[in-house]
């Protein structure tokens, strides 16, 4: 089934203004009616939690209300509708869109992808031993360089039963397992993309069910660092990062958010095809981050502030 990945994430929130400000500061473009878009048109949609257009909530606001998957062709839509109709209620909407719940109770919809073609520059590297990518007088960075989220990368769900949740996406929707944290959860890739994962599932107690985080791809590790630094300078709170993951090789920087989940910047994720064999590893810092920097607001030429306060 030619599912490309999430095209939109729809949230019901208690503070629409705070979320709108947040997503704009994060770097998405407000395009009206609660929609905040990346360069390719993938987006986050913010609505008041009592908005009648929203599917029912699975937890207190703010929370995820719908995950919209973009599919590559109309045949895939029909195949998804036929497959899911076997054991659950499926509703058809505008343009043939398919609406159903996954096995954990998350509301999904599938529609022809709205991703637009776009071009954006790569971060060129001069590595000794390799032909230079930036010739003489081409600068790698400058103060006012633009860094914009390019495309919706992945969403991470807390689920009460990860085996059941994984089986649904693999057996019913044709996702493939790329890697797995033993006892914690699988990284999953739908058939329409080579990205290491567009979905990661984490086993948690049932009352935590919801989105753990989502992220958009930035152009490079440099862009993750620059966007995160600017975001932090606006007063936003780092949760984890910046660093680089082991599974997927992607750079990461996670922030707290008023959407009820973390929001990440990521970049430079591995690509895989069907010849890849999934790695199974225990979770833990060694396997989740190759390296980690801790952002520090204050830094003194003589070294970090003394431990234990002033004396």
């Amino acid at each position, binding site marked *: 089934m030619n599912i490309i990945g999430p095209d939109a994430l729809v949230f019901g929130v*208690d503070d629409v203004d705070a979320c709108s400000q947040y997503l704009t500061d994060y770097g998405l473009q407000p395009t009206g009616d609660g929609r905040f878009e990346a360069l390719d048109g993938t987006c986050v949609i913010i609505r008041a939690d009592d908005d009648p257009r929203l599917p029912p909530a699975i937890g*207190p606001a703010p929370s995820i209300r719908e995950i919209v998957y973009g599919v590559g062709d109309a045949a895939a839509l029909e195949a998804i509708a036929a497959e899911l109709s076997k054991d659950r209620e499926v509703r058809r909407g505008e343009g043939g869109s398919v609406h159903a719940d996954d096995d954990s109770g998350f509301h999904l919809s599938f529609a022809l992808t709205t991703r637009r073609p776009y071009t954006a520059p790569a971060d060129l590297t001069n590595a000794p031993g390799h032909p230079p990518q930036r010739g003489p007088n081409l600068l790698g960075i400058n103060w006012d360089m633009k860094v914009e989220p390019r495309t919706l990368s992945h969403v991470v769900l807390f689920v009460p039963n990860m085996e059941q949740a994984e089986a649904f996406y693999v057996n019913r929707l044709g996702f493939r397992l790329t890697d797995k944290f033993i006892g914690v959860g699988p990284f999953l890739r739908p058939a329409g993309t080579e990205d290491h994962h567009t979905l990661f599932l984490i086993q*948690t107690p049932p009352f*935590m069910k919801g989105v753990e985080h989502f992220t958009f791809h930035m152009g490079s590790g440099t862009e993750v660092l620059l966007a995160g630094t600017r975001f932090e300078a606006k007063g936003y*709170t780092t949760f984890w990062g910046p660093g680089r993951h082991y599974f997927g090789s992607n750079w990461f920087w996670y922030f*707290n958010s008023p959407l009820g*989940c973390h929001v990440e910047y990521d970049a430079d994720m591995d690509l895989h095809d069907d010849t890849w064999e999934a790695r199974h590893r225990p979770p833990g810092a060694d396997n989740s981050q190759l390296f980690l920097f801790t952002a520090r*607001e204050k830094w003194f030429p003589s070294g970090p*502030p003394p431990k234990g306060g002033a004396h």
Partner: protein
Amino acid sequence: MPVPSDIPGAPAPGQDPDSPRTPLCALDTLPPVGQARGFDPVKSGRDTVFALRRSDGVRVYRNHCPHQGVPLEYRKDRFLSGDGQRILCYAHGAHFEADTGLCTDGPCRGMSLASLPLVIEDGWLYLAVAPDSPLLR
């Protein structure tokens, strides 16, 4: 041990070991009910406590979620729900009663934020905690 404080006009705290004091702010600079403010009273590099007004007085809590021990706010001073009536941890969405710090929903349900003892004197809000207390780091 002098208290590191850059609050203009703050009275010298004077450390009496029996009644430790760490100054936070002039009381009239605290925002109204429905908003909160973070403080970094010992210059640790981030806001380690936050204060809010309630109808019956001021509360100060340690900015340290009982779930994973991380800061709660998503942005400078944004510790409360949209309606200003609850404290939220913006890491995984735990909800806390503003009056008591008790977690009523989320991964640390039943646990509480550390509420810090405070003293109000001559219009100043102090924590009744020594500046070298680990609670302030």
